[in-house]
């Protein structure tokens, strides 16, 4: 806790120093950004942007998670399929996905669909990979225990497999959370009239440094906080031997 506060203080200090070095034209000071942010938050317009992003993000995350976990479970349980798919997935993970933008636009049209799709293509692969690896690496004696207790297949998945791979799924979700958000924002930067991604591009093109810095600040805080919460849940409720 104290370490976190100290780090936050250091980060803000570094930010201030950067501001002092690079100047008003490049990055707003922490105080200004905060003030602008609080002003921004008070406007209704801002919330319509935030809601737009949140809607797309929630949809994208839900799809990424469901698809990623489902696919990961299936590929993990079917070893052959898993080994076929894994390098393909990690290859896909490594491609610069912005270049796919035209294709996404083509398939999903404009607006929410494209944003969600963009979020999903960023987020689904890490979640799949983490789940797959977890299922593949599950301690076989746990499955044997389930058999020794004569559990049905469904019971085995529900009461043994799922909780056993939960820690890795949570890690996958943490990564997936961040990347899905990134994907949605990138999507909004290309084609949208609303959303925080739009606010950022808008801020850049109008050279509204305060707005850009404020929105990024908010995103960073949200992302770090969400990750912190997931990390905390992970530590609190997952008992690793």
């Amino acid at each position: 806790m104290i370490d976190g506060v100290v780090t936050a203080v250091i980060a803000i200090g570094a930010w201030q120093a950067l501001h002092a070095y690079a100047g008003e034209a490049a990055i707003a000071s922490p105080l200004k950004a905060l003030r602008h942010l609080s002003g921004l938050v008070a406007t209704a317009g801002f919330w319509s942007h935030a809601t737009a992003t949140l809607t797309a993000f929630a949809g994208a995350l839900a799809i990424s998670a469901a698809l990623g976990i489902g696919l990961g479970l299936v590929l993990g349980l079917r070893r052959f399929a898993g080994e076929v798919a894994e390098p393909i997935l990690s290859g896909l993970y490594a491609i610069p996905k912005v270049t796919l933008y035209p294709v996404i636009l083509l398939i999903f049209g404009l607006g929410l669909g494209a944003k969600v799709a963009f979020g999903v293509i960023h987020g689904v692969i890490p979640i799949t990979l983490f789940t797959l690896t977890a299922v593949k690496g599950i301690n076989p004696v746990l499955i044997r225990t389930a058999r020794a207790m004569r559990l049905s297949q469904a019971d085995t998945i529900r009461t043994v497999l799922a909780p056993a791979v939960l820690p890795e799924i949570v890690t996958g979700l943490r990564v997936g959370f961040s990347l899905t958000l990134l994907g949605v924002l990138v999507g909004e930067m290309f084609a949208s009239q609303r959303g925080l991604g739009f606010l950022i591009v808008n801020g850049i093109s109008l050279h509204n440094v305060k707005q850009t810095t404020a929105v990024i600040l908010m995103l960073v805080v949200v992302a770090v906080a969400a990750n912190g919460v997931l990390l905390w849940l992970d530590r609190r409720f997952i008992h690793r031997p």
Partner: protein
Amino acid sequence: MAVVAFADPGGGMPATARETHAALRGVTRVYGRLAALGPLDLDLAKGEFFSVVGPSGCGKSTLLDVLSGLGRPNAGTVTFEGAPVDGVPDGVGIVFQEDASFPWLSVRDNVAFGLRRAGMDGAEIARRVDYALGFMGLSDFAGAYPAQLSGGMRQRVCIARTLVTQPRLILLDEPFGALDQQTRLLMGDELLRLWRETGATVLLITHALDEAAMLSDRIGVMSSRPGRFIEIVETGWPRERDSRIVADERFGQITARLWSHLREESLKAIGKSSSRKTSVP
């Protein structure tokens, strides 16, 4: 196959005098091209304490697999309480060689796991679990998670989890492997007490000869791979016994007998299979 008795059969529990509880007939098990087990016969009498000793990799765990119905034999038949075994039958409890505690459940929930899945009534679960925890010296750790326990305690959790289901045939694969030798013998005493109190049939796989000699009615000595029984030693211990019998002179004789076989088998095995991989660059 020689059968050796170290005492008047009247004192102990000769297999022949009792009803057969589980039996293997001409059982073999092959992994790929590797013959792991058999052909092998075994009759477990109802209520007897049978130990299996043998060099590492000789097929002891494989024997347990086949007997429990977790794995199928490639040839031969397995029966439990008169019925052929296909899948793990009701009434069989298994404790594995590896730590099989569920890390996401507390000790209490681990122990209650099997009963909950079987849909038992809550009060009865609580009663049985409390008893098992006490029996295994885990009462103080009911709320702890496996990650907070030592390897030996985790293994005790697994034993408790199996015992609460009150199996009639208990299969234990090196359950004390994670314990130091002193604690092993103390746990052995607990196991003997349990066996006496429940009247279950016990099959114990172990590396420790003194453990086998101290605990068992009969000890099956296995050859190196593919495992077969080269000798079955009857100890003739009374049903009422504990680790103090190590002072008995028969104990030394039994151990020496086991040793003479195993020294030989070990010498064979160490050259061939001390590496698990068959091909090495």
